[in-house]
């Protein structure tokens, strides 16, 4: 079946099987391999992308369900050569080791800050509670998101 999906701001039309999962559409059909997968049970969140600005698990969504919606992946965070504050925060505060969970974490962080520019530590931990990191122990991920929130607030003040 033919589907037209907006992905990272671009409308694409492709022929897909109804059963194709969004994560495979993103990775295999569109070649955007920044979004990962890590489980069979919708627990790990390595596959998190944004649908209409909200984090969803792309392994538990059909590509067909995304017709008429906007999908954003990690590849959309850097704009015109400028890294997003969440990306800078993760680098600044060592919020990643192997990097496998990182794209999902970045998208959730981005959506959180769009919705709540000054989240508490508790709110950050709740926001990422559907995603697993096997390396960092989460502490630096939380700090990274706080750093991004403060950085963005500072940038807004300067603007």
């Amino acid at each position: 079946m033919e589907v037209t999906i907006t992905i990272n701001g671009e409308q694409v039309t492709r022929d897909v099987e109804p059963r194709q999962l969004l994560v495979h559409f993103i990775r295999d059909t569109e070649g955007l391999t920044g979004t990962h997968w890590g489980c069979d049970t919708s627990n790990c969140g390595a596959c998190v992308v944004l649908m209409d600005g909200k984090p969803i698990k792309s392994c538990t969504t059909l590509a067909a369900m995304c017709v008429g919606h906007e999908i954003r992946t990690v590849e959309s965070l850097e704009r015109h050569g400028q890294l997003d504050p969440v990306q800078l925060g993760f680098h600044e505060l060592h919020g990643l080791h192997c990097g496998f969970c990182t794209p999902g974490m970045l998208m959730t962080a981005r959506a959180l800050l769009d919705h709540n520019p000054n989240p508490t530590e508790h709110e950050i931990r709740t926001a990422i509670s559907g995603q697993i990191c096997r390396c960092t122990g989460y502490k630096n991920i939380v700090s990274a998101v706080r750093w991004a929130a403060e950085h963005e607030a500072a940038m807004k003040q300067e603007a």
Partner: protein
Amino acid sequence: MQTPAPFEYERATSVDGAIASLQEHGPEARLIAGGHSLLPMMKLRLANPEFLIDINDLDELSYIDDRMTEIRIGALTRHTELLESDVLARRFPVFRDAEEVIADPVVRNRGTIGGSLCQADAAEDLSAVCAALKANIVIKAPGGERTIGMDGFYIGPFTTAVGADEMLTEIQLPIRPGAGSAHEKVERRAGDFAIAAVSASLWLQGGTIADAGIALAALGPTTIIASRAEELLKGKAPSEELFAEAGQIAAEDSMPVPDGRGPVDYKRHLAGVLTTRALLRAAARALQQEVH
């Protein structure tokens, strides 16, 4: 990763259209909303519907309506919306209690109340919430519409009264004075299904309990309405002793089975303790004082 078996797919453009499709394609057709119960089962190849009818476009089913004598919730309302609704939190705080411990925030962006109720997993929290609140369920059928109570809604494990060519469209929550409600859950890890959970709802009038709703999750083949415990409470003044007794009765009437989540005696113990705690908090909320 795991992948579903092939199926055909269509997008419903209306409730009637979805029902007509269910009729046309027979028992191998399923409705899909958030898909976070159905798709994981399909990926594990435990469920293999041949036809999926996607109802996510039916915005007319997404609402939380305060109508003074009742709150009406559309079947397609997402868990996140139920969690964030201040209207719902004020009238029925049991919803926010439960939503905070249902799955995780990302899954909650997609899962719906209709999907959760129809999945009929005994461990599912909103089933207990709606049963304790004595909700009425509106089911649309090819011929028309009917409304049934929660006590007739669950027929067996993973089986509801919603027929193969029918759709759950609305949940109605009667508003009565003196209401207080709470949900208590114990789980193995964040976001997990309950080892045991209890929803309790009280309506107080003149210092005594006019009505009570107690429902148990993950403690039997389906959601269990603890009617003996409910009966015990009617007409009596709330007290710790009364709620302890109700907890004991609820524990006796629970039907836990041993599994990976825990053994029978532990689950039964939880049934009692969580019933008591939920009732205490429900009473405190009904009396406008929160217990900490």
